[in-house]
């Protein structure tokens, strides 16, 4: 009995030791360029950050470089309607899809986070306008609640019904939804994909902002520009394994690796405010944190409060254009930036459908502008959204729609 007990205890200890050892691997590779900067006596240099250059499943250098370049390209179209602008568009002819029918079908991945809820409201308001103009008849929607299988059968149901004049798809995941999108294309109706991508180009148009690399780079570059060399950065991420989020972190790793900042760690938070606050508090107990990089700003305020509650100075912060964060930023006057994953993209597929029905050309890959909100623009955006709830997104692009602001307030 005693030996078994000892064995069990040893197993637990071994598990911890083993797990602890795994962190040492990246430390060894990162050590050479970091050793000079090991000036923090508390950290002892043994807890080196995971600074390995990303080059794997979620990092494609060509995409990274293209997205970074796209940030500086002037988009075509009127800046007053960014949801109709396009970066380096290649137009395709849609005459074959021109028709009189106007039943629009939309397969949504989910409305499971504030960003998607905000976009979904904007989309519905846009539909209402076009319905009043007689351009859209029935608007049929299915919500898959983040379930791939559900979304595959939702799309199949639209195909089987046979009376959709266009199908809009916001895919739940990339690879799994690809065959479903291909099946929709094969049914002969125009297919529009937006937000996350799929591994096919059979759709008439694929609508998205510049992308995750650009987002992650906007945030990381701001930290590099605003922090002294040798400063420490903590990365807060929501979930592993989601491509748009992984791209954000991959881009940040590229930029941090070329900088003299020390990345203390990257932690998954699940987007839970309490978890975020716990993690940040613990890092602050270990030592100084000078900057915070987030792959999504949902819960950014909780991170900032951790600094307040422990009596630390505000970090240099990259959050998101969620109003809760932007208001806190204004209130505290901290050094911050709000990277944006353009929420107004939810209007574009609706407008694209009516354009396709009219036989107008649309970009085959419709890349929308994606500009961060800087301190100079912050107050303007906050003023425009003064009556909006805390979890609303500043660049939702629906101010000109008839339901504004009530539709977004009464969510």
């Amino acid at each position: 009995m005693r030996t078994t007990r000892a064995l069990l205890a040893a197993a637990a200890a071994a598990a911890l030791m083993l797990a602890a050892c795994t962190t040492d691997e990246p430390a060894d590779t990162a050590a050479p360029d970091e050793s000079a900067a090991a000036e923090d006596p508390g950290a002892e240099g043994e807890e080196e950050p995971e600074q390995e250059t990303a080059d794997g499943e979620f990092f494609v250098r060509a995409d990274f470089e293209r997205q970074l370049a796209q940030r500086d390209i002037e988009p075509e179209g009127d800046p007053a309607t960014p949801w109709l602008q396009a970066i380096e568009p290649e137009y395709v002819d849609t005459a074959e899809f021109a028709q009189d029918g106007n039943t629009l079908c939309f397969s949504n991945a989910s409305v499971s986070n504030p960003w998607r809820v905000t976009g979904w409201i904007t989309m519905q308001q846009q539909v209402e306008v076009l319905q009043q103009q007689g351009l859209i008849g029935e608007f049929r929607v299915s919500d898959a609640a983040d379930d791939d299988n559900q979304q595959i059968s939702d799309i199949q149901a639209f195909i089987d019904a046979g009376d959709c004049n266009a199908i809009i798809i916001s895919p739940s995941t990339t690879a799994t939804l690809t065959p479903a999108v291909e099946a929709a294309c094969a049914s002969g109706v125009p297919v529009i994909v937006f937000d996350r991508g799929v591994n096919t180009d059979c759709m008439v148009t694929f609508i998205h902002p510049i992308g995750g690399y650009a987002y992650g780079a906007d945030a990381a570059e701001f930290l590099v520009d605003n922090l002294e060399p040798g400063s420490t950065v903590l990365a807060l991420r929501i979930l592993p394994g989601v491509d748009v989020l992984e791209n954000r972190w991959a881009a940040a790793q590229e930029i941090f690796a070329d900088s003299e900042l020390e990345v203390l760690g990257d932690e998954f938070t699940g987007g839970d405010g309490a978890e975020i606050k716990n993690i940040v508090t613990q890092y602050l107990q270990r030592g100084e944190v000078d900057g915070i990089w987030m792959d999504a700003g949902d819960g950014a305020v909780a991170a900032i409060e951790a600094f307040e509650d422990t009596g630390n100075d505000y970090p240099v912060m990259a959050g998101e254009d969620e109003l809760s964060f932007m208001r806190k930023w204004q209130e505290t006057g901290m050094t911050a930036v709000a990277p944006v994953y353009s929420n107004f993209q939810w209007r574009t597929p609706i407008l694209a459908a009516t354009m396709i029905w009219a036989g107008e050309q649309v970009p085959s890959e419709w890349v929308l502008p994606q500009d961060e909100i800087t301190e100079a623009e912050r107050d303007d955006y906050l003023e425009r959204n003064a009556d909006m709830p805390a979890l609303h997104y500043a660049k939702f692009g629906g101010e000109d729609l008839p339901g504004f602001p009530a539709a977004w307030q009464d969510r």
Partner: protein
Amino acid sequence: MSATTQQPSRRPSVGDLLARLFGGGSGTVFALLIVVFAWIFIVNPSFAEPPSLMAFLKQAAPLMILAIGQYFVIVSGEFDLSVGSLVGAQVVIAAALIDGEEGRTVPVILLMLGFGILVGLVNGLVTTLLKVQSFITTLGMMLVLYGAIRLWTGGAPTGALSEAFRQPGRGGIDMAVVRQLPWALMILLGIVIVAVAVMRSSYGRTLMATGDNERAAGFAGVRVWRVRTLAFVASSVMATLAAILIGGYAGVTAQVGQGLEFTAITAVVLGGVVLGGGKGSVIAAMAGALTLEALFVLFNQLSLPSTIRPAVQGVIIIAAVAYAARERARPRHHQEVPTQPQPATQS
């Protein structure tokens, strides 16, 4: 004469105390707690400073309160899977109804307590009167609350919490040495005192008896349905209090409360409380919660990659509970001994 009275009465030595502490049952959790804390202090001595410890207790308080609530239900032989959803629902309700207006704080908190009691009553009555297994009842309640909140808010919370609402979870009394004595800690201590008193009252004993042997308790005149329903109400009220602290601590996010039910159950089990009921102390359940939180801190201090943490946590929990269970199996053996001839004295 029972076997226990035949045990030779020796004076407890240091060895005995250590054996009790590390020996198994509820003791394991305290031993684990000491080991984890010692490890944290070695890795990061600054964690031992009073302000850090206070911050730790402030963040651990909600889970400890949830564990106390879960303890009542588990010791009565049931489960409550709805607490995570209830925490989420309560925070979202608070934000939507308060909507930043300080004056609404107290009425909304009262309303939340009322809602918590209602949820507990439904859980309890469906389980005891309709004889639906609590696993199913509370799983259903978890989905109902989750879905209802989704429906009500369209997927994401609205509104804002008032400063006054946030005080219990975030604020405290500013003072020297500890920097801040958190309200959350004082609330926790109040709840612990009440919980210990309840478990020592006749209600506590009937609750324990119900969990140990429902039929026997019933024959002894215990109104099992009432005892258990009250346990569910206690669990929901604790979840409500935890929600007030969590909402206060971190504000409103869409994911608040998710998965807390399993963390709370894990904490209770880690505290040596037997699933199925009838054994374990409320203090140990709370210590289980504290140990889990400490474990999360340790993982962070060791810079474990986030992805490996659940696996390591799982191994430690299984090892600790298995270790405790082996020890617990021993006294039972002894109790069966009197059916066989036994020498009157032991050497």
